[in-house]
């Protein structure tokens, strides 16, 4: 008799094999694991380019190529699993995006296909029709990640899809096609995409039938037969059971990933609760099976799901399923992006259990977000509490109101280290130099950078529907199918996130100049400029670099740089919030770099905090390495809590540490206490890597030794073995700092 535990163990083993195989096919990827499985041999997609620049755009381009990539996906049925389906490839691989392009795909394209493609500009945007050459000089000047060509950084309302099913989508498309006859192209494209998903399911049905015929183990055969019935049922029908709902979500997620790598999940414990409760009532589900199904869903894709939290009346929504989800995640214990919403009214035992799993598995899950600070902050944008409460954690650093918000979160960033560089350049020619003057110039440049960022955001929103319509996500958004409009055109909320990157570099630079040049007078402005220009060359340059770098840092605890970090945050928030936007749109500030610290660093010369030219900038809202000799996580927590932007977007606290604590009462109390105190001080989101020093160091030396080691790189988790050596080094340095 094969137990569920034995099946899970076997599935985990397969997952490890897949991780290694994927690294072979993709090369190192400093990205989310995505839950993909390796490509089969001879996999090939012949993309259809409807633009002469060698890319595809718009309703027809996206729908046709979605069908081509989906249709190229062979079914994935592992008889040991209960759910089927996996994705392997995505549309962006055919649109010249170097950042995401795996090795296997690079091998297929010609050198000439990359013409005009840089790390910053790919062919994802139709520049021929919607050029923005006038914005590019300033975007480059301030190293802005523009958001132009971004996609999928919003969240579906899964209740819409679960209520309709794929057949229901088709009926809804037909219904509104009649009401909006002028939107024929839109409905044609939507319909075409839905049928591609149904064909994807059909191939799975055929594969399951094939496997049933040859399966000799009776319980596996029985399991496959159930899988078959479920897939047949949800092919067109509405999911009716917990099993069907999980399988439906899994298939939708595969499609949505293939389309634009959408990784936004939903409030897992409440959306699936009615199915769970109904099945339990009807005696067709037990907790062990429910856990297996959730574990299977988490295996299929590490989507960002939120669990726990409170409703609009501040009433705890934690339920029995919330516990089962944690237990399921523990059972499978892989790369996982569950976020626990924390509120003072929430079930304390549940919170403790979540912390327990963080300590027990040391696999970087779950992470935690603060309801109070996110909800109250978002309301400051003029949003009602009812809506703000629905804004859940569905991305790396970001939140979104499912179904109605178009936030572009995590796609728009300004590298403020580059803004500082421009301010420094301006001040160089001035006769009188001071940090006060430098800050004025910094503010001036920040305003220009924000204006050009806003222009980019507006260009994107105005034309995304013509370039990359969200054909899959539209299926589960409000007013899209109803009006025949893309969500970029009809969202109820346009609260667009703009993140600043490099806070610690800038704060420590101001702090070091303030202290070493102005207060202690150990250094002149001329010496500073000379050394920035020659990148601290020679042994005397190195001494000056160390002099600046040893100045008390941001997160040191009431240091000069901590004060500068707060001033910089104030000016950042003021500048972003005062930026005028059309059509009810508004910008929302946050601090986040995502995994682009290396890339952003390469664009910035030497900085007055003793950072050499081209070195990575600081991560997210985190301090620079060696911010304190004791690396105190409490000091880091306090420092980051003090630089929150306060409008519902995050400045995450990212901690890597080995507290040498057991998963016992003391460990839970200490780590749980740290989480709560960060939130009580105003913190919004915490990503904690509780790591085992020996294991991490062994894996750093030889990644093959621990192919199952998961780290939270930034907002996302990834297998350590899949990261590039450069990125592994960054994670290890962050770890050593704590």
């Amino acid at each position, binding site marked *: 008799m094969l137990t569920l535990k034995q099946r899970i163990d076997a599935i985990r083993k397969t997952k490890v094999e897949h991780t290694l195989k994927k690294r072979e096919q993709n090369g190192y990827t400093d990205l989310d694991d995505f839950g993909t499985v390796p490509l089969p041999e001879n996999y090939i997609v012949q993309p259809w380019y409807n633009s002469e620049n060698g890319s595809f755009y718009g309703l027809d381009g996206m729908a046709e190529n979605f069908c081509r990539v989906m249709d190229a996906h062979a079914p994935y049925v592992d008889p040991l699993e209960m759910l089927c389906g996996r994705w392997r490839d995505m549309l962006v691989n055919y649109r010249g995006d170097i950042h995401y392009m795996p090795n296997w795909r690079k091998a297929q394209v010609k050198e000439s296909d990359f013409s005009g493609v840089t790390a910053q500009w790919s062919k994802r945007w139709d520049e021929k029709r919607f050029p923005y050459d006038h914005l590019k000089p300033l975007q480059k000047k301030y190293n802005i990640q523009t958001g132009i060509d971004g996609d999928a950084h919003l969240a579906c309302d899964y209740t819409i899809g679960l209520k309709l099913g794929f057949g229901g989508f088709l009926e809804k498309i037909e219904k509104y096609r009649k009401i909006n006859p002028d939107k024929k192209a839109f409905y044609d494209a939507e319909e075409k995409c839905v049928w591609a998903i149904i064909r994807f399911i059909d191939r799975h049905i055929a594969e399951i039938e094939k496997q049933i015929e040859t399966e000799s183990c009776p319980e596996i055969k029985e399991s496959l037969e159930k899988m078959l019935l479920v897939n047949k049922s949800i092919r067109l029908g509405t999911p009716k059971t917990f099993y069907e709902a999980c399988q439906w979500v899994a298939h939708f997620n595969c499609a949505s990933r293939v389309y634009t790598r959408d990784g936004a999940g939903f409030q897992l414990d409440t959306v699936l609760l009615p199915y769970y409760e109904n099945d339990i009532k009807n005696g067709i589900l037990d907790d062990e099976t429910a856990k297996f199904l959730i574990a299977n869903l988490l295996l299929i894709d590490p989507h960002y799901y939120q669990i726990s939290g409170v409703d609009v009346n501040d009433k705890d929504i934690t339920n029995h399923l919330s516990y089962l989800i944690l237990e399921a995640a523990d059972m499978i214990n892989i790369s996982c992006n569950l976020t626990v919403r924390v509120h003072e009214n929430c079930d304390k035992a549940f919170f403790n259990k979540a912390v327990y799993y963080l300590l027990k598995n040391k696999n970087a899950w779950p992470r935690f977000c603060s309801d109070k600070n996110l909800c109250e902050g978002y309301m400051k944008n003029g949003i009602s509490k009812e809506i703000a409460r629905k804004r859940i954690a569905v991305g790396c650093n970001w939140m979104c109101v499912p179904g109605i918000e178009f936030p572009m979160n995590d796609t728009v960033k300004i590298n403020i280290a580059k803004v500082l560089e421009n301010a420094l350049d301006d001040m160089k020619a001035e006769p009188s130099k001071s940090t006060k003057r430098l800050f004025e110039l910094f503010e001036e440049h920040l305003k220009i950078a924000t204006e050009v960022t806003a222009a980019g955001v507006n260009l994107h929103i105005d034309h995304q529907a013509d370039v990359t319509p969200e054909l899959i996500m539209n299926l589960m958004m409000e007013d899209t199918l109803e009006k025949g409009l893309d969500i970029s055109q009809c969202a109820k909320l346009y609260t667009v996130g703009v993140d600043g990157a490099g806070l610690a570099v800038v704060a420590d630079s101001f702090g070091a100049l303030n202290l070493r040049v102005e207060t202690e007078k*150990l250094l002149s402005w001329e010496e500073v400029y000379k050394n920035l220009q020659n990148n601290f060359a020679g*042994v*005397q340059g*190195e*001494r000056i670099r*160390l*002099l600046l*770098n*040893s100045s008390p840092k941001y997160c040191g*605890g*009431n240091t000069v740089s901590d004060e500068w970090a707060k001033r910089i945050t104030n000016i950042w928030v003021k500048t972003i919030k005062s930026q005028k936007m059309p059509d009810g749109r508004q910008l929302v500030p946050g601090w986040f770099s995502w995994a682009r610290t290396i890339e952003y660093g390469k664009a910035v010369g030497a900085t007055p905090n003793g950072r050499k030219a081209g070195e990575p900038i600081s991560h997210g809202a985190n301090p620079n390495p060696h911010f*304190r*000799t*004791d690396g*105190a*996580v*409490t*000091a880091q*927590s*306090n420092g980051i809590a003090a630089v929150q932007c306060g409008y519902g977007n995050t400045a995450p606290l990212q901690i890597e540490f080995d*507290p*040498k*604590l057991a998963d016992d009462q*003391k460990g839970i*109390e*200490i780590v749980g*206490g*740290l989480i*709560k*105190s960060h939130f*009580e*001080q105003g913190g919004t989101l915490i990503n904690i890597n509780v790591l085992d020093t020996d294991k991490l160091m062994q894996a750093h030396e030889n990644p093959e030794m621990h192919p199952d080691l998961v780290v939270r790189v930034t907002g996302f988790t990834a297998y350590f073995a899949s990261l590039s050596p450069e990125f592994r080094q960054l994670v290890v340095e962050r770890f050593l700092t704590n």
Partner: protein
Amino acid sequence: MNKAIVTDIQRASVHDGPGLRTTVFFKGCPLNCVWCHNPESINPNPQIMHYSDKCIGCGKCEDGCFSGAKVVCGKEMTAEEIFAEILQDKPNYANNGGATFSGGEPLLYKEILKELILLCKNNGITTAIETSLFLFDPEILSSVDFVMADFKIWDGEEHKKYTGVNNDIIKENFKHLDTLNVPFVVRTPIIPTINDSIEEIVAIRDFIKDFKNILDYELLPYHPLGVTKQKALGLPETRFIVPENSKMEILRSYANIKAKN
């Protein structure tokens, strides 16, 4: 104004008492244990520590060293200055975390300690002390919330040989400590070849087991952190073998004061 010499203030410590703690390391100790992992805290005066591997050869040592090659160990601080650091983590202490006064021997600085304990109490921060109990102050020891006291070697002669002082006074102070109604933990650093025998642990255990305020008897394995610092201070390096986990487990089984009753 009273000042103390402090070697370091370490925040977010999880091994110096309950919860998350800020540990203040005072400089100066009446003992001179050969295995000391904080040898920089023995001499009560500020000292220069040299880490030659960090030297960049700039030739400007006198103008200030920023590479970490030449470090001044020991900073004069008032109680207010120390407390300002402790206060920073007040939001993180939760129910049972707080300040721990360690060293060196914190009881060398009685007046400062009294001020600090009062400041902590007035601000709702719990306090703990780590002491060799070679010094004693009933007022201080009865005013902290928790005491961690070392009992290093049972035999008096051996104790003098390896720590520089006899332990008669320490034994008396342990008895006195138990009358103060303050919970305490007894700790023995396990140094191979010196005190890593079952007989040694049993002798200490039998001495402490009937104290009414004792919470636990902990054995801490030797670790060689102090060797690098001895070198940096220009002191002879004394290195011991790190005891194996299996050995620690055996010794711990004899140190279990809860089981003895």
